[in-house]
């Protein structure tokens, strides 16, 4: 497996990984690889941002290296750390041996050299991606970058611009081949322009009913075509409404899986009521939904389907 040769190639190889991308998505993925620019994915939670990165890795036969961001993530957790306990152990062992032999000056320098060698370096995701020797450059997924602090964003910008880092004790390490980088953001805050400029930007939207149906058919074993269609129509109507957290594709898949597990083959009020927890994750949304007339939504689904 290798890099994508064209937009069509990207489209079909992603589909082979059961990721049904629109042509726009495939085009941008292909471009970011052809131009060696990181891909910045934004969109509501659950539209498949992380999935896309995984699918790209699978499709290219590359390793996926993931850096999950959170508030307060810093370079020690993202880049490298010295394995302090092991270094200490090494020193204790060395001094124990030293006690028997001697020649302190020489062995001390040697000890120091060996202490700060790659052997005692704990590679965190960014360094791992830079030093990777895989045949196919790895896919580096920087997930939910919007949750990290701005300082970290600036640090990341620096790493992404030349893919080299310097470790004081070791010197400068440089990537032999650039990893393919995907960043995702849920837009809890706006990212800095400098970072955006470094990337190709892609907004992932909810798929249309046909595509979502196809996704269900690909992802949920044993689901009937008509039933999948019904679920997707229902989701489409829900997403037109005003909820704090509108259900994404991930929710649709969960929901369908749950319904199949309950051996439901058609959608009625009771089935919806039993499985609401798959669709809504906030109490406010649950209440708001219960206030509305479920039967009416279901009737609307039937009307849309018969048209």
């Amino acid at each position, binding site marked *: 497996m290798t890099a994508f040769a064209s937009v069509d190639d990207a489209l079909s190889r992603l589909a082979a990984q059961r990721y049904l991308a629109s042509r726009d998505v495939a085009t941008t993925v292909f471009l970011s690889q052809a*131009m060696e620019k990181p891909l910045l994915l934004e969109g509501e939670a659950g539209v498949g941002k992380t999935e896309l990165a995984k699918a790209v890795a699978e499709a290219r036969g590359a390793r996926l290296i993931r850096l999950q961001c959170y508030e307060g993530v810093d370079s020690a957790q993202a880049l490298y750390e010295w394995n302090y306990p092991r270094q200490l152990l090494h020193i204790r062992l060395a001094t124990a041996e030293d006690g028997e032999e001697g020649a302190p000056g020489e062995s001390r320098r040697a000890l120091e050299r060996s202490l700060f060698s790659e052997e005692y370096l704990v590679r965190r995701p960014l360094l791992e991606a830079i030093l990777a020797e895989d045949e196919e450059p790895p896919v580096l997924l920087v997930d939910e970058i919007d949750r990290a602090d701005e300082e970290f964003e600036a640090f990341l910008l620096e790493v992404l611009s030349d893919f080299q880092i310097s470790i004081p004790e070791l010197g400068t390490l440089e990537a032999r081949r650039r990893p393919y980088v995907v960043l995702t953001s849920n837009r809890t*805050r706006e990212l800095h322009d400098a970072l955006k*400029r470094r990337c190709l930007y892609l907004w992932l939207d909810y798929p249309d009913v046909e595509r979502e149906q196809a996704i269900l058919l690909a992802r949920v074993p044993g689901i009937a075509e008509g039933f999948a269609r019904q679920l997707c129509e229902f989701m489409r109507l829900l997403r037109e409404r005003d909820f704090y957290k509108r259900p994404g594709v991930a929710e649709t898949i969960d929901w369908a899986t749950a319904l199949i597990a309950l051996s439901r083959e058609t959608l009625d009020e009771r089935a919806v009521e039993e499985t609401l927890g798959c669709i809504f994750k906030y109490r406010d949304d649950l209440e708001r939904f219960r206030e509305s007339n479920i039967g009416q939504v279901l009737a609307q689904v039937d009307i849309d389907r018969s048209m």
Partner: protein
Amino acid sequence: MNGGSAPGVWELAAFAGRAGTLRRGTVEGNVVAFVRLLREAGLQVTTGDAIEAARALLAVGLASRGDVRAALAASLVRRQAERPLFEALFEQFWSRRAPGDAPPGPPREVASSDRGAGPPARLRRDAVPEALYAGGDAAPAPRATPGAYSGQDLLTRRDFSSMRPEELDEVRRLIRSLAPRLASALARRRRAARLGREVDLRRSMRRAGRRHGELRELAHRRRRRRRTRLVVLADVSGSMDLYSRFLVQFLYGLQQELRGVSTFVFSTRLFEVTPMLRARSFAGALRLVSSSVDAWSGGTQIGAALADFNRRYARERVGRDTVVVVLSDGWDRGDASSVGREMASLHRRARRVIWLNPLLGAPGYQPLAGGMAAALPHCDDFLPAHSVEALAALGRRLLALEAGGGRAGRSLAAAR
């Protein structure tokens, strides 16, 4: 800088220098002309972006219109909010000349001939040329000495609405100097706090334990500094207009100290004016509001404006690090219960909600107006913001939050 006529020519030269592989005349000319169109509509596109766009086009080829659009969008659009404008301009530009057609005319011509039929030029830069600080004479930094008895001192306590025009000019200058003064006071306090760091013994030992009892470094208690985001919702209907102007000017000066300021104005509808403020034109921003159809048709619909904000912006702009500042007198023409509902939702989401009501500065004022009474239970602070001094108090409060204060402590109706 973006609006001048030079970039077109200059960029063509840059292309010629940078991109040897470009097929001249088809890709580069089109991209330059299209970028120019985007800029005129107010999108920020750098020359670097334009070069990337041309590279993208060469990578996907020009055969499919959809691919061309996706390639340009990926390299020229930075946020989803810009996408509709991009789509409209793309349709307008590339439908007229199918990609791969004969080389375009001079970019200049394309841009101006397309201008008339264009999409709403809401972000057009050159339409908002005024400087934020009216009377933009490079006014000397005022030498206001806080605490001294002077005419200025009196001025800082007076209600804006009672001032003569020349006094307002003076106040404008005062406000401009206020933000830097508050900020430097804060910086001093931070330095002092850094010196007196406290050793966290428990954490030091825990850390040593993890390292086989080796006490390598002391852990210090540190107060995590979280930078605050600020969202301003300013009522610009009727009598509130003047106060809103001063508030926004003041907060604009303070924005360096905060992580980001988003500013919205509302009367019967809500508008975001953050981009205009970045271009330093509050007057232009206000003009935009007043030119909208029903902005001045009377009264305010706070509930509707808040609902609009909650639906369209809150998820992205308001989080646990966000302070929301609302300025309004609470006279709502619409439904008071909706004000309560929307404020409750906003309050749940934000770190802190501050309501500014200039009427609070008037003796004997009681917050009884329907909307105001409904909003009050969902506010953490209720402050006047009717004078320079009141604005300074607000600024100190915001910066104190910035320095690590929590959600505790309400100052309802306390400030006079």
